[in-house]
């Protein structure tokens, strides 16, 4: 089906998310959509999918103008979408999730026909090689599989146009490859695909055509053959961007963080970190690479004192750190949490208050029970200037900042004091290249000051760019430790996917691998 968007404009209070966007997707084409954070990609797709009504412009399908009042209309017209944030009900089974909204029923009163739906799901998944247990509960599935469920959901409804909004953000490179294979096979059978990503390599690899959005407008359309990563990046940001972090070789000193035999359970009391050992030295950046859901979140929470430890020890400069975030903070550990708005900031508080969120009780911000407003405001003004937080006033609510600026508030808070250890989880998730560049530079600066840095990231590019040492985490353990020089994306991807470490690893990793093998 040929899809045309003509002159789409969508405004939100205070923001023009899309402005006169034109986009043509030919039948059987894989069309990549690129752009900075907030460029308006998701908004445009939501307009196409009937979630938003455009303020101006129209949508043409095979030349016919259509109006979608809700996603139901879009689905009926053959449009399927895999959303940036999964749209799956965790407590439902795969079958229930897939059939939702397009249920098979039998008999009287709309009784569900689960058997029929299951049969059709198996059919779809076999046709496209999307293996999944139709009776599993979605909350029990790893992210990669959930992604598959999302795709099955779209295919189950026989989509002619398939929108994939950042589908690879949570996949290993290998899983990404599998997805590309599926995309190509779908495209061959005539499905049009719109593919959104921040990963320039992927775009060049899989897309037939590329449209770049900048600040809600089309910045240009091109093809992989006629462009490069650098050109794409410049098109997105509007200036040339340095894609590689400049950093000197690390000079590791003494051990700062030492983790031994750590066992941590997740919210549902399943073991998530399973006897993990790791050391991080002063002046080095250790990166934990791994697919989301392999215990990284629990590991970080345990190290920062947010989650009780079931067994094992964590020491900072030789002193054990207990399951209390404040003591960990006072021991000199800074933490950039995975989820900015959930963990790192208090929306509803001003920027100034958020900047003292974990030190409000210390001098000079408080004497006894009394908060020292002046000291707090003064610090806020200094840091807003120093870290270039774009805001009219420190009295502004952080909720009204853009994502990048919110992250800057956190970085300012965590970086602007002497620290021994920096723990950062997905420090650049969802940020655009400009912001990524900025944050990476700050992290390397910290390292050079002699701080031990532990980064958890699912982005291989980030891991490869920052790490002085790479630990691959799989199912709650470190399965390999690599020197970035010898790590390739392919090898990392294999390890993250659970392949056994090959020979040639460094000695510590071999030991660990051996231990893991004997324990398991």
């Amino acid at each position: 089906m040929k899809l045309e968007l003509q002159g789409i404009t969508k405004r939100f209070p205070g923001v023009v998310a899309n402005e006169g966007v034109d986009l043509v997707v030919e039948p059987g084409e894989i069309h990549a959509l690129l752009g900075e954070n907030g460029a308006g990609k998701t908004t445009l797709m939501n307009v196409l999918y009937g979630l938003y009504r455009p303020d101006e412009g129209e949508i043409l399908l095979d030349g016919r103008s259509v109006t979608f009042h809700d996603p139901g209309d879009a689905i009926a017209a053959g449009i399927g979408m895999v959303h940036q944030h999964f749209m799956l009900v965790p407590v439902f089974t795969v079958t229930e999730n897939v059939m939702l909204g397009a249920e098979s029923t039998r008999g009287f009163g709309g009784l569900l026909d689960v058997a029929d739906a299951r049969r059709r799901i198996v059919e779809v998944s076999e046709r496209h090689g999307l293996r999944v247990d139709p009776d599993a509960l979605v909350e029990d599935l790893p992210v990669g599989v959930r992604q598959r469920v999302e795709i099955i959901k779209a295919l189950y409804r026989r989509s002619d146009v398939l929108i994939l909004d950042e589908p690879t953000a949570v996949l290993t490179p290998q899983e990404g490859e599998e997805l590309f294979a599926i995309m190509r096979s779908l495209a061959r059978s005539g499905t049009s695909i719109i593919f959104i990503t921040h990963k320039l390599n992927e775009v060049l690899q899989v897309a037939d055509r590329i449209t770049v959005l900048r600040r809600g407008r089309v910045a240009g359309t091109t093809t992989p053959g006629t462009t490069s990563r650098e050109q794409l990046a410049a098109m997105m940001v509007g200036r040339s961007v340095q894609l590689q972090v400049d950093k000197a070789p690390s000079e590791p000193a003494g051990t700062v963080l030492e983790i031994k035999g750590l066992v941590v359970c997740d919210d549902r009391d399943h073991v998530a970190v399973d006897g993990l050992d790791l050391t991080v030295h002063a002046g080095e950046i250790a990166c934990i690479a791994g697919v989301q859901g392999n215990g990284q979140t629990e590991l970080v929470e345990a190290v920062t004192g947010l989650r009780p430890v079931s067994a094992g020890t964590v020491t900072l400069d030789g002193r054990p750190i207990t399951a209390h975030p404040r003591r960990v903070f006072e021991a000199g550990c800074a933490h950039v949490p995975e989820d900015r708005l959930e963990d790192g900031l208090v929306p509803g508080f001003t920027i100034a208050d958020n900047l003292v969120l974990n030190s409000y009780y210390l001098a000079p911000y408080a004497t006894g029970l009394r908060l020292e407003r002046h000291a707090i405001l003064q610090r806020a003004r200094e840091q807003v200037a120093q870290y270039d937080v774009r805001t009219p006033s420190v009295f502004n609510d952080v909720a009204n900042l853009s994502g990048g600026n919110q992250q800057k508030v956190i970085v300012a808070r965590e970086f602007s004091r002497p620290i021994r250890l920096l723990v950062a989880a997905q420090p650049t998730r969802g940020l655009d290249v400009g912001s990524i560049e900025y944050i990476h530079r700050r992290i390397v600066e910290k390292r050079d000051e002699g701080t031990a840095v532990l980064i958890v990231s699912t982005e291989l590019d980030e891991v490869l760019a920052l790490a002085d040492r790479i630990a691959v985490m799989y199912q709650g353990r470190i399965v390999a430790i690599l020197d970035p020089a010898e790590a390739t994306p392919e090898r990392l991807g294999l390890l993250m996917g659970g392949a056994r470490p090959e020979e040639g690893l460094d000695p510590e990793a071999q030991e660990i691998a051996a231990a893991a093998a004997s324990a398991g």
Partner: protein
Amino acid sequence: MTAAATTVGAGSAGLRRQQLFGFVYLALAAIIAVAFGAATEPGATSSFELNAPRVAVQLPPLVVPSAPTAYALAGLCAFLGAVQLTRGFGARNAVVLGAVVLLFIAGFLVWAASTRSMNLVGVLQGTLQRATPITFAALAGVLCERAGVVNIAIEGMLLTGAFVAAVAASATGSPWIGIIAAVVVGALLAALLAVLSIRYRVDQIIAGTVINIFAIGMTSFLSARVLQRRPELNNPDRLGPIQIPLLSDIPVVGPIVFNNNVFVYAMFVLVVLIHVALFKTRWGLRVRAVGEHPKAADTVGIDVLRTRYQNVILGGMLAGVGGAFLVLGSTGRFDREMTAGRGFIGLAAMIFGGWAPVGSFFASLVFGFADSLQARLSILNVPIPSELLLMVPYVVTILVVAGLVGRARAPAADGRPYEKE
């Protein structure tokens, strides 16, 4: 927030929890032996009547020696505690916990009925009667919350339903019209809740509280201003019990289950019907999706807001029936603030019942039992101050909410307004 983080299920913690329960069981055994067994007069017997008044088949009363029976129960309880301490029951933990609670209640009953006779069938009949309005309230809660709307206004809906049922049934002379009126007004109040919380995105608990205050104020005002002057408007016919032939002659069960008024039968039907509808039909799947992940439901073309409106209003109608029961199926008149917290207890039953109709019904029975037993004890002059006995249902509610809500999972989007854009 903290609940999740503090429960650690791995090895050592699990062991501690198991031991804790073991000690609790042993302590309960000790209480049964000392407070219930040793406290009875030597040689006294406890007699339990198994007949309802005027039934065809009469059973002999169950008479047991008080102290020995209590000691036996204590022994059994102690045995379970010892096993729990040493080996644990693993997956059957919940069953054992239930058994211990039953042993404790049995011990208590033996003590309470010592030197007296207690009509067990009566206690159970009372249980069902008391559970009825609570069940209606809980069903209303299930419908609303499964769709993601917290309805704390059920109390007010019960109260208004009761008022309107009394007036409409009195004015028309037909209790059926009273029920219909209560259903309509329940729906109207629910629609107000829905508009406030869905359209205007007022915090749902605040919207509910507003409706509760409004309902109390309005019914009290009208009761003083209108019913006071026109008492004939507060004099409806009641719907009496209907004996189901044959079935009601079954000993013990018959008089309890098959000799009730239409409200109770309607409750049975609705519990099953709503349960099936919620978990086995397309409608139910969509409702649950809306309550768990409204955005996901939206993206597959389900109208989230409409589903919520619809369910809240359906819930209001059920609450209206519950209110009508209090007047037309029970007391035959309206009095200010006559619901006495039953709506809130219904919410607790809903939580206890895991947001499922059948579970809520059984939870309501637990509350009904606590209440029924409490009244029975005061009738039998068991030497506990009436004020303490009257606290029992409320304390049970607190214990249930405290003990179970951590484990029971509310619909994920419960209480959260949904914004389409």
